[in-house]
């Protein structure tokens, strides 16, 4: 398997955008376009490339352990998972913002160092933001989806979540109160692959980078 470069993609829109970009850089995989295929792993024998799709939070895990040499994943996941991988390129798409959101009345709660409750899918990012940047003590409650419910049903005061258009927030009477950081898709590389497959990995990075400029 050492002849192949294995690339882990984040299932969904990000994967399509990534394949488009890789296509521009001269890398492709016909097998992935086959409709109705139940394959889990797709190979391009000619270019010695393998691709597979994974859930976002698992992509850095596959890359850290070397199950994939390269991965493409949102920077929110990289920050949250804190895996030992090299983050080599900002791909510029999948852009959104990590924000603290809540009802207007919650704005006041962020001004002082008082204790508040935060519901989020990203406990590590939330902790880092409130503890180290705002120096505010918070209770973090981890939820696995529809985090917006938190303030509505009084589970928490504010949420920390990704905001793309803000329409879900608006429909539920919430708004962006503070921005934590910008998010975009990143290319990550396994530490060992970077050293052992230096030429091929760096060639891919270079070719993709050239398409970005």
């Amino acid at each position, binding site marked *: 398997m050492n002849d192949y470069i294995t690339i882990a993609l984040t299932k969904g829109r990000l994967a399509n955008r990534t394949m488009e970009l890789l296509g521009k850089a001269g890398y492709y995989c016909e097998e992935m376009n086959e409709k109705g295929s139940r394959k889990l792993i797709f190979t391009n024998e000619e270019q010695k490339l393998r691709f597979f799709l994974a859930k976002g939070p698992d992509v850095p895990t596959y890359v850290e352990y070397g199950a994939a040499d390269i991965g493409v994943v949102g920077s929110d996941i990289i920050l949250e998972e804190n*895996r*030992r991988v090299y*983050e080599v390129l900002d791909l510029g798409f999948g852009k959104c913002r990590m924000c603290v959101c809540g009802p207007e009345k919650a704005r006041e709660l962020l001004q002082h160092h008082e204790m508040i409750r935060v519901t989020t899918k990203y406990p590590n990012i939330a902790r880092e933001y409130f503890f180290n940047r705002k120096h505010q003590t918070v209770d973090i409650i981890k939820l696995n989806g529809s985090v917006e419910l938190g303030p509505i049903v009084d589970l928490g005061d504010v949420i920390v979540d990704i905001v793309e258009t803000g329409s879900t927030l608006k429909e539920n009477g919430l708004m962006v109160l503070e921005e934590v950081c910008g998010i975009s898709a990143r290319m990550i590389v396994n530490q*060992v692959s970077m050293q052992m497959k230096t030429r091929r990995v760096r060639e891919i990075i270079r070719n993709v980078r050239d398409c970005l400029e």
Partner: protein
Amino acid sequence: MNHSNRKAQDLLHTPEGVRDSYGRENTAKQQTINKIMEQIRLYGYKDLQTPSFEYFDVFSNEIGTTPSRELFKFFDKEGDTLVLRPDFTPAVARCVAKYFMEEKEPLRFCYQGSTFSNTTNLQGRRKETTQMGAELMNDGGPQADGEMISMLIECLLAAGLSEFQISVGNVEYFKGLCEHLSMDGETEMMLRDEISGKNYFAAEDLLKSEGYDRSQRDLFLQIRDFMETPAELEAALMTAPNERAKKAMQRLIDVWNVVDAYGFSEYISFDLSLLSKYHYYTGIIFKGFTYGTGEPIASGGRYDQLLGYFGKKAPAIGCMIPIDPLMEAMERQHLIDVQEPEIHKIYYHEGNYAAALKEARMSRLAGFRTVLLPGTGIGS
């Protein structure tokens, strides 16, 4: 299942991050440790043992080892904070400073044992790992650097590995660049994190926000290029912006020459962005990589200031091999070929115990692993 049985079942678990090692796996691990330690001893290194725990200050922030919150800490009866060692080097440095304070001749020590770090749960990382390593103190020359790297290569070869790379860098080069741009300490630390994570666009953003212009930023971005030949190193030497960075490049060339004289230059490549999370490293720094594991299988570097913290001014360099990722990599590369040693069985019954015992002792004298078992050996 009755109550006492269930209680016994609960007792069988080990805490997360630690594990038992037995059977073929353990045999392979012990054999590999022996092969590597023998190789190190062939270079004249003497075994050294330091305690499993020390005072907190030996591993504190100032020394620059593992972050405090990843240390296993506890208290003694006097209320002093004690720490399970996360890393051998500061402990060995303390020990050598204590017992060899006046010694000026080079000192060579090797060690093996467990290290502990209190990392996050559920990330599949071990909290107790076995490490082997060597430290060469009172020798600041490139020959010492070259010896350490070559010995490490020979250890990995002795373990049975053949496809691996040692990436070599020099912390001084990065520091030289920072000095050239008169960078403040905080920015330097942030930049160090980004560059060691190969996150060059974040590094560039940081430099931009600090007001550095394009040519200044490019100085840092250049260090992402890997180098393999002395010619490439010479070229980098020519473009180094100041004396400190030039010296750092020259040192890498000198080290390449030493490793080449050992005949191992094919195993090394140069990576100027290599920086360690251990901030005590001051010069040459290296990491070993192979297929089959996501972690480095070796690391090390020069730490000329560390002994100074313990009152002994002396240069030093060391290397370390974490056995667990090495075994994992060798397993995945199908390089592990051990049979558990054969054990002779001698059976006794009430009437012949004395004779059976005599036979067993003869067998052990002859060097065979022998057990005495009750019964006849038939039907078992």
